[in-house]
Each structure stands twice: as structure tokens, then as C-alpha cells.
């Protein structure tokens, strides 16, 4: 039979899911004999979440921010509260971390977070207010600062304020920041997902170098199906199948090929030279929880706003 599925995803995952969809279609055909048409919707994941709340009838979401899935429960009652428990690894089949892209030969000699606050360094990163990507970078830096300065709140704040002060361009999204860094030649380091950084390095061999700091943030890429809509669309099995298959070795290899870190042991080993071992701090260690992180740091008037206040 002909079946249809709508995957609502974050903006830069288009090629990834285009590839995965092919893989999945074959798998599903073999398994059930059904042909599947998979529609892809890509935009900033907050915008996607809003669209779903306002009635965009996506069957599954594959986001890059946990909060954007949480909101589907909070605002829309479209999924249960414990959605993260429904699939392994907090429902995130792959993850990444934050890394730096620096220009060839690393002229500013940037190795770790403390190098980024040097006077002579200019940074490019996405806006933490508008993109999860930016938020993760912020949290990664926060994690580093907490590790380094312990309980000294003032120093931590100072460090973060300095870091934000070094940013030349805050693009509204990850790809914008990349374009700014690559195409416009702005900045000494681009702070973004490791996956993105590796992609670029692959794309422009020899022109850039990748620096992964020793301490960084565990950026999970959560997925779930939208209970309300799969019910309406009659696609529950398909949606679940689509997401579960992400955990298969075959899919994990595909994901790793797109420079995402994965959980599957076999694949992990295969790609071990690409993903150096670093300390990845989850949100719970840095800010307690996502709710807490959003509230204290990113809400209007929160820590981020205070730090960015003009001095």
C-alpha cells in the first residue's frame, strides 16, 4: 500500500534525512511491503514546533533541541510528558557537541575556551536567542567556566560576558553563521556543532581546521512521534518504525557519515578517529535541567540578557 509520512525537522538536516528516507523506504518496503512517501519540512526547530502546535500535521519530529519537543507537550498537549522515555538514550538516536572551526594553520592558536576570550580573537556564532545551536555553545562555555572557576560566580559570569563580547556576528541560525564565517570571511573562529564543523572541513579540505575543546556540551538530537497527529493520520506504526530504525546499525552508520556522534558500539568504533574523546557535560550537570536552563539563562531578562547588557 501507499503510505505517507511527514517529518518535521530542523533547518540543516535536509540532506541527512533525504538520505535516511531512502534507506528507510527500502527497509520498510522489505519489512511490510508498503511504499512510503516521506515529506520533509525543514526550518528553525522552534518555528517548526510552533507550526506543529498551530496545526502542521507532522507525524514525527526530529529536532536539535529538547525544549522544542517539550513545548509540544506543554503548549499543545500533542505528546505525553514522558516522551523522552519512549526511545533509547532519551529518545535521541544521535548527538553532537560544540566545536570550533578555525582558519588554516590556526593562526590565532585557538585550542580551548580560554583562548576565545583573548582580545585579538573575533568569533562568529549563532544567536543563543534564536537558535539552539547558539544556546548549546553558551551552555558549553558555561560548563567549561564552572569546571574552571568552581563556585566563583563572578569569574564565571565575567568569562561568559567576555566570550559573548568577542562575537562579531550573531547570525539567527547555524547555517547563517557558517556562511558568515566561510563566505564572508568574518571572524577567527566559528562556534557551532561539531557535525557542522566537520562537514565544512570535509567540504573545503585544507582550508580550515577543526578544534574540539576538551570540555564541551552534550548536544542531544531528540526525536518523537506526535501522538495526536499519528492517530489522526493513522500512521502510528510507520512513525514509530521510522524513528526506531534510526537506532539500527545501518542508520547509525549513515548518521556518523554526516558527522554526528552515535551510540551504536560498532559504528562508534569505526569512526573513532573522527570523534576525539572529550568530556561532554549534559544539561543536568550544567544547569540542572532544560527548564531551569531556559528560565535562568535564556528567558527575557535572564542571565544571557544580563551578560550581554552593554558595559
Amino acid at each position, binding site marked *: 500500500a501507499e503510505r505517507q509520512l511527514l517529518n518535521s525537522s530542523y533547518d540543516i538536516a535536509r540532506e541527512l534525512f533525504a538520505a535516511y528516507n531512502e534507506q528507510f523506504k527500502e527497509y520498510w518496503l522489505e519489512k511490510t511491503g508498503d511504499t512510503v512517501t516521506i515529506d520533509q519540512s525543514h526550518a528553525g526547530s522552534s518555528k517548526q514546533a510552533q507550526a506543529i502546535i498551530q496545526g502542521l500535521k507532522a507525524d514525527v519530529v526530529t529536532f536539535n533541541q529538547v525544549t522544542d519537543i517539550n513545548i509540544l507537550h506543554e503548549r499543545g498537549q500533542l505528546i505525553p510528558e514522558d516522551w523522552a522515555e519512549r526511545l533509547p538514550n532519551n529518545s535521541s538516536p544521535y548527538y553532537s557537541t560544540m566545536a570550533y572551526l578555525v582558519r588554516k594553520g590556526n593562526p590565532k592558536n585557538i585550542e580551548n575556551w580560554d583562548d576565545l576570550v583573548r582580545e585579538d580573537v573575533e568569533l562568529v556564532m549563532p*544567536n543563543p*536567542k534564536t537558535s539552539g545551536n547558539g544556546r548549546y555553545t553558551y551552555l558549553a562555555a558555561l560548563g567549561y567556566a564552572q569546571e574552571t572557576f568552581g563556585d566563583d560566580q563572578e569569574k564565571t559570569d565575567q568569562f561568559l560576558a567576555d566570550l559573548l563580547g568577542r562575537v562579531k556576528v*550573531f547570525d539567527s541560525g547555524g547555517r*547563517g553563521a557558517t556562511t558568515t564565517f566561510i563566505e564572508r*570571511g568574518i571572524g577567527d573562529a566559528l562556534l557551532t556543532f561539531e557535525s557542522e564543523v566537520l562537514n565544512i572541513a570535509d567540504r573545503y579540505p585544507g582550508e580550515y581546521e577543526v578544534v574540539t575543546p576538551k570540555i564541551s556540551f552534550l548536544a542531544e538530537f531528540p526525536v518523537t512521534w506526535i501522538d495526536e497527529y499519528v492517530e489522526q493520520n493513522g500512521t502510528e506504526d510507520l512513525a514509530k518504525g521510522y524513528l526506531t530504525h534510526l537506532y539500527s546499525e545501518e542508520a547509525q552508520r549513515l548518521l556518523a557519515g554526516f558527522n554526528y556522534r552515535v551510540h551504536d558500539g560498532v559504528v562508534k568504533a569505526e569512526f573513532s578517529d573522527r570523534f576525539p574523546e572529550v568530556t561532554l557535560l549534559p544539561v543536568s550537570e550544567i544547569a540542572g535541567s532544560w527548564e531551569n536552563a531556559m528560565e535562568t539563562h535564556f*528567558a527575557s531578562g535572564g542571565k544571557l540578557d544580563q551578560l*550581554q547588557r*552593554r558595559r
Partner: protein
Amino acid sequence: MTGSTTQAPGRTRGSLVRSKRVLPGFGLSLGISLLFISLVLLLPLTGLVAEASGMSWSQFWFVISDPRVVASYKVTLWTALAASLFNGVFGLLLAWCLVRYEFPGKRLIDAMVDLPFALPTAVAGITLATLLSRDGWYGQWLDTLGINLAYTPAGIVIAMAFTSLPFVVRTVQPVLEEMPPEDEEAAITLGASDGRVFRKVIFPTLWPALVTGVALSFTRSLGEFGAVIFIAGNTPYVSEVTSLMIFIRLQEYDYAAASAIAAMVLLVSLSLLFAITLWQGRYLRRLLGR
């Protein structure tokens, strides 16, 4: 009949009888217009009002007076002002040359003036950013002069100026075309120099149209997002525009706050336009005696 009518002149009866129109289609065109305006323009605005009015006054105030938002007002106002003033000058120059002179490429330039209307704003933004970036066609040039426009408020000004240029040209142009040569000639026969004639005779006539054009350009710039976002740099307190603040509130799922800020911008824009309509009415009444 006569007894009562001397009592109540015109008013009531007048409005009754006036509904008998000579030209056909009053009902139909009124119906279509009202239906359309209500459904397309006003109904959606109720959403904005409803969202914003869900907040208490102090919440509202808190949202719109957030320092970062306030900073974005300043940035937006200044850049929009600069852009619309630039357009005031450049648009006037363009309109002047298009109306007054013959030169090769005139028709081409005349046609190109509408380009910013027709081009998607995002494309405009990307294009301008590409041009002005450090290795872009203009950027590398400016770089050798030590000037950097992209990712600064100057970039915002350029994007805003680009997208709203047609407003000025297209409002000034017809007025210039309609301006009778006699006024100028009269001034010249009275011994006035060109500069003086322009200042004292031509400019006052152009002034209302120019102000309208600049105001439209200004309000359009206040709301500009697509073109600006690619070239602004978006540094907090320096190059964040209010549209971005609205966008951010949306990202935070804070519709009420987004509506509140949007309502502010809308209020400013509409009151500006309305004030100008009023002012212009008075100015023109003096000029035209209507």
C-alpha cells in the same frame, strides 16, 4: 412638510437622500471593500490585539521596556531614519533626473527603480551581504579603504534603504512631473538664482510628497526583517533590530510579548502615517485652498 424641514436643515434628510447614488455599484463596491478589508486586514489585527490585551499593563510595559528591546528600538529608529533620509536625498535626485533630463539609460533606470519592490527581501539581503562582505565586489574595495559596512548598523541602513527606495521615487516623481514650469520661470524672471528657486519655490511644492515618501520608506524600514537579518551582524545592543526581537519572542513561544512589540511598531507606524496625513491635509489645504 415645510414646517418640519425648516427646523432640521440638510443633515438627517440629506444623509437619507444622499444614499441615492447616481453612478452604479455603490452597494457592490462597498460590500466587496468592506468584506475584504474586514476579513483580510482587520480580522487578523484582532489576533494581535487579543494577544497583547491578554497581558496586564505592567506585563506589557515589562515586555516593551526590556532594555535589549529598547536598544533595538533605538537601533531600528536610527537606521530606519538614516535609510529613509538617504532615500529622501537619493530618491529625490533620482526622481529629479528621471523627470527633468534626457540621458542614455534613463528608461532602464526608471524601470529598475521598482526592483526592490519586486525582489524578495531575503534575496535582497543575501545579495547585499554578498556584495558588501570582505571579499565581495564592493567589500574588497571598501576594505582597502578600511571601511566595513557589512555586519554593522551601516549594513542595516543599506538593506533598509534598498528595500524602501521606490516609495520615495514613486511619490515624488508624479508631483515633479505635474509641476508647472511657470512657477519656476516666474521666480527666475524675478532675478532669483537657481539655488534660491529650488529652495523657495520647487522644494516647498515637493515637500509634502517627499515627506510622505520618506515616511512610507521609514515605516517600511521599521518592519523590515528579511533583508536586514542577513547583513546586520545582530550584535545585541548594537545591531539588533526590533523585527528580530519579535522573531526572538516567537522563538521563545512568547506570542503575547511578540504581539506587544509588534503592536508597538504598528502603532508607531500608523500614527506616523496618520500624523503625516493630517499635516499634509493642512499644508495642502493652504496650497490648494481646498
